[in-house]
């Protein structure tokens, strides 16, 4: 029981990495950008991969009528996400401690994991919705108004996961170090659950 509880404490602590490391990374490379432009999406805002990348992405995007990338204060997500993550870390650690002293059983570990997964999926859904809006809700006076072969206006929504070709840019969107730490942490809580489950099965 002690081992499972310890794992349950350690797992959520990995999520603290999100306060320092980016959750997601989007890279934009083009012939004239041999060193690609990049943005790191943190839970509290979007930051440059290299200095001035955001400014330069905005500069390029203005040709096709995309809005500027949001500042932290312009999106509620960037103030809410840190609270949610912080709360989930505290909750997970609390569950782990209570698990060690025997006040809670291992099923709570799975409960935390399920709750975190739901929140994660909601977060992804929200992120994707923002990208759809960002990539399709374009300035009607854009300098370049491009259409797909079928006549519909071209969308510049970056992929949520993987690579897409957008005009002259190769756009790659992948989870970044913060997300990987989160996955490791969440997996640890699943392990905590199985360890706890096995421990309860043994004596019987």
């Amino acid at each position, binding site marked *: 029981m002690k081992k499972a509880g310890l794992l349950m404490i350690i797992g959520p602590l990995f999520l603290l990495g999100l306060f320092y490391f980016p959750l997601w990374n989007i890279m934009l490379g083009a012939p004239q950008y041999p*060193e690609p432009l990049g943005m790191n999406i943190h839970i509290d805002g979007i930051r440059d991969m290299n*200095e*001035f990348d955001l*400014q*330069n992405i905005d*500069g390029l995007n203005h*040709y096709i009528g995309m809005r500027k990338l949001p500042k932290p204060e312009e999106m509620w997500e960037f103030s809410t996400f840190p609270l949610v993550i912080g709360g989930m870390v505290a909750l997970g650690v609390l569950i782990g401690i209570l698990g060690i002293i025997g006040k809670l059983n291992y099923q709570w570990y799975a409960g935390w994991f399920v709750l975190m997964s739901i929140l994660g999926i909601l977060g992804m859904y929200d992120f994707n919705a923002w990208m759809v809006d960002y990539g399709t809700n374009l300035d009607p006076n854009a*300098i*370049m108004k491009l259409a797909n072969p079928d006549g519909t206006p071209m969308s510049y929504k970056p992929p949520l996961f993987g690579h897409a070709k957008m005009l002259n840019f190769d756009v790659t969107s992948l989870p970044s170090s913060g997300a990987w730490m989160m996955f490791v942490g969440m997996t640890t809580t699943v392990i905590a659950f199985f360890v706890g489950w096995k421990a309860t099965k043994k004596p019987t």
Partner: protein
Amino acid sequence: MRKYSYILMLFGITAFLSSCGNQGDNKSSNGALSSSAAEKAYVAPGEHDEFYAFMSGGYSGNITVYGLPSGRLFKEIPVFSQFPTSGYGYSEETKPMLNTSFGFVPWDDAHHPDISQTNGELDGRWIFINGNNTPRIARVSLETFETEEIIELPNSAGNHSSSFITENTEYVVAGTRFSVPVPQRDMPINEYKGNYKGALSFISIAPDNGRLNLEFQMMMPGFNYDLSHPGRGKSHGWFFFTTYNTEEAHTLMEVNSSQNDKDFIAAVNWKKVEEYVKNGGGTKMPAEYAHNVYDEHTHMATSTMKKEVITVDPTKVPGAVYFLPTPKSPHGCDVDPSGQYIIGNGKLSADLTVHSFDNMIAAIEGAKFDGEAYGIPILKFEDVLAGTVKSGGLGPLHTEFDGQGNAYTTFFISSEVVKWKLGTWEVIDRQPTYYSVGHLMIPGGNSRKPFGKYVVAMNKITKDRYLPTGPEMEHSAQIYDISGDKMELIYDFPTHGEPHYAAGCPAELLAPNSKKIYRLSENKHPYAVLTPDQAKVERDGNEVHIYMSTIRSHFTPDNIEGIKVGDKVYFHITNHEQDFDVPHGFAMIGQNTSELLIMPGQTKTSLWEPKKPGVWPFYCTDFCSALHQEMQGYVRVSPAGSDVPLTYSLGE
């Protein structure tokens, strides 16, 4: 007599035949080697060169930057000459760079670049170069590749034995080729002898920011001080200058200054002189010389006129200067990486004279002098001589080193590079140049740590090397691979201007520090606009200041009205890009100056004095974006005295 000439003729024919035979051999071996030679000089598309080569532009007044071994031209750095491409010397900010005690001098003859050193090794902070005609020394940043400072040298003329750096970049040293009256005065030319002086200037370099200060000038006898190099290692603290015209002739120099069998190498113990000056020695003399400094943060140059210089009479400082007799009007004065050998390239002879530093010190200690010249002791030739290189070539000019114990000397008259061994003085190899080589360059080849992989020969005559371009042609250069025993010609390319010398440097020393942009947030230009909403137009009498910003792909503001004929209109343009390699240009119709090319984060100013009423367009000259053609604006000019209000706008 007749028989003698007949024999000579026979000899000539034999030589001709045998050289023909050799040439045949060379051709066939070249044929076999040509593919590997091509590979050696080939830098594939997208790949980078191994070395930077900074070549002086001679009468272009500038420095050109090439890659080695490809010979590709990367940049021309404006130094002493106005450069309409970027607006250097035309923009309000850079006009002061070309200020001198003679007023604005838009040109010079740039000769010998030298890269800053630490412990005798290239450190890649700055490159220095001399202006020969109106004596000046410039310092160029190797982060921005822009000229940051120019100091004029008083009491000097023909600033040729310059600009060479002591091994910890303590001083950049500049000697006078044309001795002159000091101070300048109205006097008969034929009273030259004994009256004119040759000033050797020691300019200190501040270690933190490179700022130059003329510390002292040694007033030497009125010879021609041709080239120089610092001692290094054990000879650090000494500086060696070749002289010619020790005859002190003032007319028909080609004959009259070539009469002495030997001229001198002047060995200057600058540490002694420095000490002497520090202790209050020397004479403060009134002078007038410009000191021009460009500030990277204000993006502006300021010119200050200095009023005084410390001069030193070398005879007043015991042990400061000795003359080393050196045959036949020596040109290059080169010191090997160990600091032991001082090479005099006697340009009117076949042989090279090599002096030994140890011998020189022993001779000085033994006080074995062979008379004196104007109170300066002359050492005995035999006492200081280390050896003679019997090269078989004619007209040696300049020598550099590969760090493997070999030296490479150019021979102007016989048009070749000769490789020889230090210490044994034996000739190892020789290769023709095309044609009449002046200087050569091995990256780091005049430092304690040469990078002996390539030698570049810079030639004075081009003739048939390339497709003809009328009577005037660029000069040719050849690159030889010297990594083997024998030199191998691997590439031949034209160079811009007339490179008199070059300095090479491993790419990895400079490339990582090369600036990509100037930070807008650090822009301290008094007329900069840091955000587009600060853009404005202000009138002050007939002066109009336009605070303008640019970003792809518009000027802010781009419509201006209320300008009048007779106004002086200053366009202060700040490039708001913070993206590598996105300059914007600025040009105004009918403007009596050059365009501006403004780097990201930079502010430059162009003066326009409209002469006719009308609506006059300006535009961006750099193809900055897909909408570059749209990057334009209009200025409405009304007749003098009209009352059109001053307005400016964007997108209205």
